[in-house]
């Protein structure tokens, strides 16, 4: 039992906190709207090695674990960095696991992404990073395919200004078929859930900081609004929610790093003993989505009318808190899927 980051992870956290502090943040996110990608920042990110960080060293990657990637993902979320790093990392890891990762993807000069939903009529709909990715890994029926080609460059306008696009899979190469295809996609999707959950924890963390900061500063009735208990109690529920979401996402990342095959995972509902990666990954996204939605909602409310104004930053976090999780699915449906993992299928 050790709930501290390793020394290497602390260093990693510091490096990427600094990177995102200078190359991301609310102003950069605002400037990157509506496309949702900051091209120059991605170029700078290549210099850090982050795009290939989670790939084996034998391929020229950094050999980082899912838990290491999660450390970076929280800092990315905390600064709402308009960079498709999570999609790139999980799709590249999937490709590398079957020996199909193109070299430019390792370096990040070509962006890869994962279609979250099975293709319909030969098209993957609402692919995250689909507007900018050259490579799309998708599940099409019982086949896992890789569609490579020019990215459309423009995103579908959306709530969170995500670089979403529909991507036709014409001429895609078949990577895997049958149960192996489904298993590989499910694994990558669980990594996406875990890292997106961690990024949502970052959103929630910053939203809480913004709300607390504003409550200390804003004066009404001759005192800071943070002196009113009604305002304090809106905010006081949040640290536990945010920390709980961080712990669960970290547990998922730990399970995904220490038991990659999932063979040793425990799912014991009656004893509240759960170490199965897929179950924890699903759970972590539900909790983090709720933490981010609640933290941004309350923080925006504490800002009063200004929270609703484009000029203030909290609205940027509010919209992404919803978009980053809902791009996969309704949390209630995710919960029913988790119930199948806990109870067996209905």
């Amino acid at each position, binding site marked *: *039992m050790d709930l501290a*980051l390793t020394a290497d992870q602390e260093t990693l956290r510091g490096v990427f906190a600094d990177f995102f502090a200078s190359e991301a943040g609310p102003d950069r996110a605002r400037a990157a709207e509506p496309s949702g990608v900051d091209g120059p920042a991605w170029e700078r990110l290549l210099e850090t090695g982050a795009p290939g960080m989670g790939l084996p060293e034998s391929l020229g990657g950094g050999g980082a674990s899912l838990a290491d990637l999660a450390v970076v993902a929280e800092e990315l979320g905390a600064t709402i960095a308009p960079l498709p790093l999570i999609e790139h990392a999980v799709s590249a890891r999937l490709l590398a696991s079957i020996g199909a990762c193109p070299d430019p993807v390792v370096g990040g000069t070509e962006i890869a992404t994962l279609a979250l939903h099975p293709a319909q009529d030969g098209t993957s709909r609402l692919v995250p990073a689909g507007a900018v990715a050259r490579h799309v890994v998708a599940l099409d029926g019982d086949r896992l395919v890789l569609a490579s080609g020019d990215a459309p460059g423009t995103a579908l306008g959306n709530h969170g200004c995500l670089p979403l696009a529909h991507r036709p899979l014409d001429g895609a190469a078949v990577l895997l078929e049958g149960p192996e295809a489904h298993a590989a996609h499910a694994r990558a999707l669980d990594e996406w859930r875990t890292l997106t959950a961690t990024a949502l924890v970052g959103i929630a963390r910053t939203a809480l900081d913004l709300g*607390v900061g504003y409550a200390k500063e804003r004066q009404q009735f001759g005192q*800071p609004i943070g002196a009113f208990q009604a305002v*304090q109690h809106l905010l*006081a529920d949040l640290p*536990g929610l945010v920390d709980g979401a961080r712990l669960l996402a970290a547990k998922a990342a*730990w399970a995904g790093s220490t038991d990659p095959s999932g063979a040793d995972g425990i799912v014991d509902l009656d004893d509240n003993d759960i170490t199965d990666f897929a179950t924890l990954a699903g759970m972590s996204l539900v909790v983090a989505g709720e933490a981010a939605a609640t933290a941004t909602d309350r923080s925006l409310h504490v800002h009063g009318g200004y929270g609703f104004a484009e000029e203030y930053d909290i609205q940027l976090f509010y919209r992404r808190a919803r978009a980053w999780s809902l791009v996969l699915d309704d949390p209630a449906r995710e919960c029913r899927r988790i*119930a199948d993992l806990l109870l067996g299928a*209905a």
Partner: protein
Amino acid sequence: MDFSLSPRTAEFRTEVMAFLDSHLTDEIIDTMHRTGTFNDKPFNAALADAGLLAGAVPGYGDRDPIELYVLFNELEKAGAPYDGLAVSMLAAGVINAVGTDFLREQVLERLLTGRFNCCLGYSEPDHGSDVAAITTRAVRDGDEWVINGQKMWTTMAHEADWVILLTRTEPDVPKHKGLTMFLVPMDTPGIEVQPVPTMASERTNATFYDEVRIGDEWRLGDVNGGWSVMGVALAFERGVMGGTNPAVPLLRHVRGWAADAPSPDGGRMIDDPLLRERIARTAIANQVSQLLTLRAAWIAATGGLPGLEGSMAKLYATDRYQQAVGWFQQMAGADGLLGFGTDGAAADGWIDYDARHSPVTSIYGGTTEINRNNVAERHLGLPRTR
């Protein structure tokens, strides 16, 4: 990070689980709910005899707080009577931290045998959350103290051998500075215990102190230093010693009920999509509650004081427990209104029980509002409002 228990802690957990398998009978659980006394002395004694109780005292010996968490978490998950034990071991921890050799010998050593109990006398009829304002008086008389007053919510007083009593020794100073803590033997003349029944059938008590005379050797901590002794006790209590995973047994009972219960829409309740969603949401909250509690234990194990983290765990866990109880009571329909021992009761009456019990969890051990104040002021740095 590493979320696995150390080999030693895992072995301790295995021992606790094996103990519960062999010693926690249905009869013990039935008795605690029938009598409302969540304390079973033979069970406590057996725990001690199995060598598992020394780990239950915070800060004592070479046991670490994660083992303490493991013990109370397993007791809570199993639905064992542990309320009396938790208070006794909390008292043992406070004595270990601030008590004299006399108190260690007279009380701590005996508590560790599992054959004695301690209860807490903090709250009064007119002083609950504002506990520093209590008025029970202790007046020095030579080497003795004379105590007069009344305490409320003195749960287990009818089982206890001692009460940890918060008294006012100095009325003319700011309220936090005039408090002194005592360990008072319950057989001291002048103490009266009156039962206070509750809607969950859990028994608590009011206790009355009329010219209760004890020697100075029963003082716990410094004269007028009672508030800092309270602080030690609260740091032990919040989070680590049970109370943050009550929805684990609830979910086990609900799942057992749903596996057989017919759905009004046909089929079984376990296949109802909304119930499945709510089971998953409760399972998720149970994981988060466990992790927040484990974090508090881990902070204590690494030399920190997890008071605020304990507040966070309690805030989250009690809110989600109450939400889950509400969901499952509604979904069980009229059958969920039936209690223990009633033919046709959903989940053998557990849903009715949890719906009765759950409101108190956001009140006792520090209300939700007091915990929010703690987090707002001491974690978020917002202005103090009182």
